[in-house]
């Protein structure tokens, strides 16, 4: 609505766009870098799912914490890790956010609350619950967010983690990114009931909502409520986000067989960035030119990040076994 178009009213809405575009451009460039052989290890992109990390992290403070998965670039960026640090990490450089130790699936930036992405399905849920336990024990009002895919929902970690968070009223937000597939195993084949929010309410008596994961405003709103609930001591929530990844499970993987071209095309129509752009313009929060400028800016930022990463040094082999134990131990 036009009368929302004040600096303070529009800027947070435009910022959502800015972040989604930044994630998209970074992912596209990382995919290219992977094709060029600049990313030595695996690379799972977040293309198509940007609204979720963006909408959730928009509600977080720097001292709130996030635990993420193998598909974690978007969460890292949305939590504030720079594209430089992400790109350098994927290229295995000393300037990466994990100093080259981690790669795509192990991004760490604890200074700003990115407590790690995990190559194993499940642990983000438990560690997220654990951070919530810490905050409650220590009397802090920080909150904890655990991201995970539909693939985690059948895993024991999901059930053990949500149950503990529920019975102990922990300040945790569980964010399920249901993109309908775990690699090529469809969620409908992995379980008979795909309404995760309904299950969580019925089994754990936890606040749980289902949202369109491609609608950044819907995600942001659900997360706002969940964060408020957690921060005020009213316990955990689950946000069940329906979404779709429009690239293969990982770069370089064949993507056929398990999903149809029609399905993919239909979801591409529902691109979260395009949808938010249209809304911003229609509601008068930004002009097409504003958005083009944002895209240009993102392109510049990401180009710089890739260049930074390429020109950064590899870590010193002599440090390969450093940091296994804490200093002085």
């Amino acid at each position, binding site marked *: 609505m036009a009368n929302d178009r004040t600096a303070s009213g529009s800027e947070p809405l435009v910022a959502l766009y800015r972040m989604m575009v930044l994630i998209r451009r970074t992912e596209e460039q990382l995919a290219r870098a992977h094709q060029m052989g600049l990313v*030595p*290890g*695996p690379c799972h992109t977040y293309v198509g799912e940007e609204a979720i990390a963006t909408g959730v992290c928009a509600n977080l403070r720097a001292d709130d914490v996030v635990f993420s998965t193998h598909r974690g670039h978007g969460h890292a960026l949305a939590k504030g890790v720079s594209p430089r640090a992400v790109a350098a*990490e994927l290229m*295995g*450089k*000393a300037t*990466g956010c*994990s100093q*080259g*130790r*981690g*790669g*795509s*699936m*192990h991004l760490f930036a604890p200074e700003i609350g990115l407590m790690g992405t*995990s*190559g*194993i*399905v*499940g642990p983000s849920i438990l560690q997220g619950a654990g951070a919530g336990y810490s905050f409650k024990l220590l009397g802090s009002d920080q909150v904890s967010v655990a991201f995970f895919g539909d*693939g*985690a929902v*059948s*895993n*024991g970690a999901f059930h053990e983690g949500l149950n503990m968070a529920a019975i102990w009223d922990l300040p945790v937000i569980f964010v399920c990114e249901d993109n309908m597939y*775990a*690699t*090529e*195993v469809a969620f409908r*084949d*992995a*379980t008979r009931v795909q309404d995760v929010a309904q299950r969580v309410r019925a089994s754990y008596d936890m606040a749980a909502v289902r949202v369109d994961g491609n609608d950044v405003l819907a995600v942001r709103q659900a997360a706002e409520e969940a964060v408020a609930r957690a921060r005020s001591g009213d316990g955990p929530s689950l946000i069940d986000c329906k979404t779709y990844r429009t690239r293969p499970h990982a770069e370089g993987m064949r993507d056929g*067989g*398990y999903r149809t071209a029609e399905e993919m095309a239909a979801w591409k129509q529902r691109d979260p960035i395009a949808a938010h752009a249209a809304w911003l313009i229609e509601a008068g929060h930004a002009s097409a030119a504003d958005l083009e400028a944002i895209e240009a800016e993102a392109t510049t930022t990401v180009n710089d990040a890739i260049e930074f990463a390429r020109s950064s040094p*590899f*870590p*010193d*082999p*002599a*440090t*390969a*076994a450093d940091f*296994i134990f804490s200093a002085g131990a």
Partner: protein
Amino acid sequence: MREITYTEAAREALAEQMAVDPSIFVVGEGIGERGGNFNTTLGLYEKYGPMRLRDTPIVERGFVGLCAGAAMTGSRPVVDFMFIDFILDSMGELLNQISKIQYMSSGRIKMPIVLRGCIGIGGAAATHHSGSYYPLFVHIPGFRVATPSNPYDAKGLLKTALTGDDPVLFLEHKLLLNRRGPVPEAEYALPFGQAAVIREGSDATVVALAVMAPKVLDVCDELAKDRLDIEVIDPRTLAPLDMATILESVGKTGRLLIADETFGPCGIGAEISAQVMEQGFDDLDAPIARLNGVHTPTPYSPSLESAIIPDNAAIEKAIRDLVAE
């Protein structure tokens, strides 16, 4: 003889046994229509359908426990972990159930289950996809552990795994999967507990397992130019471990190096060293040496990754040091 890849050889063993034994089924993520992340089951789904090629949710503990129950009741499950790292969530089912139920039931229940997956460091897979873990299963009683280093062994050992009645860890090093080698078309199987002397020599013995076998062979070919004549043994199975072949070799050479990519502490090298100490002490002309990967989680960056695995230079140095002792 025709040459096929390691993966093809293992798949052939599986396909042949699935054709003759309808009680075999495979579980794993993406082992159905997709044919497995590492092509372990390619083409089998079309033949045998979902009951025998069972795509699963991500429930490693769950499907290992399920396979235990299936093995106890007349089936012969094959668990395809893709990366063996994913086995860790199922350790309770493995160490407390699968390895113990034959014993607990005084042999009245059998446990014919094959647990397979890719091991080892390589390709910047990083620390959640680079584990090996075999010393854990050698330490705990009740498992057979096979670590084939070439296509011929891969097929022959998997055949034995699929026809025996014990739990078998069948571990395929990711850097070996695409290596080609001769594999006869005729039926064969390789017994467990029989090491292969893959190179004869008299100056020293090197026990080299999994990916270290071809690496050590390469190095020994080089060393031969300097008239160093090294015997190389691939144990092929770590449980049972064919100590007789190793001891005989040490009796001849007087010197022993154990080369193993994974960790040293409480590892395979330690066990072999301790057994040779106990049974072949007087044969030793020099202390037994171990060459292992650095005792650290696996880093991602190629510059760090290559620093923690024993490369050819490290192997050469270890052998030269041993001979010089």
